[in-house]
């Protein structure tokens, strides 16, 4: 950095909080992860100034790839304005001095918890997922030594046992989030708790998709334009969620909708979970059933905040 250039971030911290050695170590893990799509690479995670469950894995990945000129977007279940999203955005403005945005198109890096934006991503963008549990086989096989062998030898029959159990119990594959995928025809991968609605967006995506699990200290990745297939049975093919309703605010018919309770008499509405997508559409003049009602908009915001607080 030249002496003329102004330090825009809080000088009490190294750029992007992590020390350079840690960032190099995480970047090496990321390169390996991209070279072997879907493979979980262990990394020596650092303690972060946030509790696990608030995205420490994603934050470490973002900190390792972000540059001073990058623009950052952070979403939590599709929303830019939840406590979690706001605090992560604020964290990076402070420790990296980066610009932040709510616009998917303007972002170089998008850190996300539980959603993929509705707007298509483009080459050069990086999507960073926060991952609570990286191991898709863990539920049925608690032994790490065994799951490691299953990945090593591509022994993935057990994953279908889980889907079988779903159909036996509910008559259909009832798994709606963390829906397992095969990456590049080789590694079984958990897409993190995104809704299965988002699974098809991972396939052939021009952006780089990075996954960081803080507690389990694992990193994995999907390089641009990779094959990402959702598991299923011949007679129970993979399907995404659909709604009879359109978004009450913007009228979108092809976005992922959250249900929002309006009153204690059973009144409810469905609105886009991707707040920026919804606002964009309204700005373009699209209106849903309640799109002109400021009270409905306020309700939608409150509901998102509650959803994020778990």
């Amino acid at each position, binding site marked *: 950095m030249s002496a003329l250039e102004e330090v825009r971030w809080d000088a009490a911290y190294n750029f992007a909080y992590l020390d350079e050695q840690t960032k190099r170590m995480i970047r090496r893990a990321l390169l390996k992860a991209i070279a072997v799509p879907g493979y979980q690479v262990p990394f020596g995670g650092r303690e972060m100034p946030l509790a696990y469950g608030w995205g420490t894995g994603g934050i470490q990945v973002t900190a390792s790839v972000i540059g001073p000129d990058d623009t950052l977007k952070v979403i939590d279940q599709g929303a830019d304005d939840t406590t979690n999203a706001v605090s992560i955005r604020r964290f990076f403005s402070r420790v990296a001095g980066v610009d932040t945005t709510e616009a998917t198109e303007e972002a170089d890096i998008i850190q996300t918890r539980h959603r993929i934006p509705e707007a298509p991503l483009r080459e050069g963008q990086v999507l960073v997922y926060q991952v609570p549990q990286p191991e898709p086989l863990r539920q049925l096989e608690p032994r790490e030594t065994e799951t490691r062998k299953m990945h090593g030898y591509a022994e993935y*029959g*057990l994953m279908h*046992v889980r889907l*079988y*159990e779903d*159909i*036996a119990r509910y008559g259909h594959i009832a798994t709606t989030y963390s829906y397992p995928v095969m990456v590049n025809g080789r590694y079984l991968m958990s897409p993190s708790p995104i809704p299965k609605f988002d699974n098809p967006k991972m396939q052939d995506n021009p952006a780089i998709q990075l996954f960081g699990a803080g507690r389990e200290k694992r990193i994995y990745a999907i390089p641009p334009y990779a094959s990402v297939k959702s598991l*299923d*049975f011949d*007679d129970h093919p993979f399907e995404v969620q659909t709604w009879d309703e359109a978004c009450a605010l913007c009228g979108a018919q092809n976005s992922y909708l959250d249900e929002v309770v309006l009153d204690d008499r059973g009144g409810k509405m469905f609105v886009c979970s991707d707040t920026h997508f919804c606002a964009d559409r309204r700005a373009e003049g699209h209106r849903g059933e309640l799109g002109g009602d400021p009270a409905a908009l306020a309700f939608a915001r409150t509901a998102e905040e509650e959803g994020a607080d778990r």
Partner: protein
Amino acid sequence: MSAAMAMDLAGERRPLLKVDRLTKHYGEQVGCEDVSFVLYPGEVIGIVGESGSGKSTLLNVLSAQMHPTTGTVDYDLRAQGPRDIFTLSEPERRKLMRTDWGIVHQNPRDGLRMNVSAGGNVGERLMAIGARHYGELRREGLDWMTKVELDTSRIDDKPKTFSGGMQQRLQIARNLVTRPRLVFMDEPTGGLDVSVQARLLDLLRGLVRELGIAAIIVTHDLAVVRLLADRLMVMRRGRVVEAGLTDQVLDDPHHPYTQLLVSSVLQV
């Protein structure tokens, strides 16, 4: 004498399993020592002996669950012919264990997934080799539950809600669903009531004969081998002290230890 034995005498079949001077030591402790034998397709061999004589050790080495200290175990692979199983790569060995072999554990907890339904337990091996049609998996599940005389209405129940005898039946179904050519069993009727034991033995005998499966069965119980085994090996202190056709060994034991074992004194 079984059909398999007759064909062996006629020299028409090659061994399924050929065991040569197999030895397993645990440090200074002898597990099994210098065991050699041959098993032909469809043949059932019983291994008997007192507690600590090395039966489980031998079975665990034969079924590749443990490495031997010295010696070889050649198995007649479907695709490649006879191979020493300890020269196979780990994925090859694991594949063999869940396709062409079956392993029925004494404790069903070791052989079943307790939090997966009966149908899922039966279907797992099929899914592992690529079955991707739910309806067909379902049909196989029901079919195998019928074969092992389990109530098909329990197909979606978890094994932890099953009795010990039912769990053993389920374990057998789960193993046989890929039509293995060789099944290893360690005390398959141990820990069950006598009446439940008898019915399970009947069932096992029927299945083994009907499907032409070869089996190696470890047991304390001479009644089990009398009913199931074509041939018998008697173990003591890690060594095979007597071997031969089951009826001959039991009715006319030569080794003093076998004579003791057969005499009512030692019978459990």
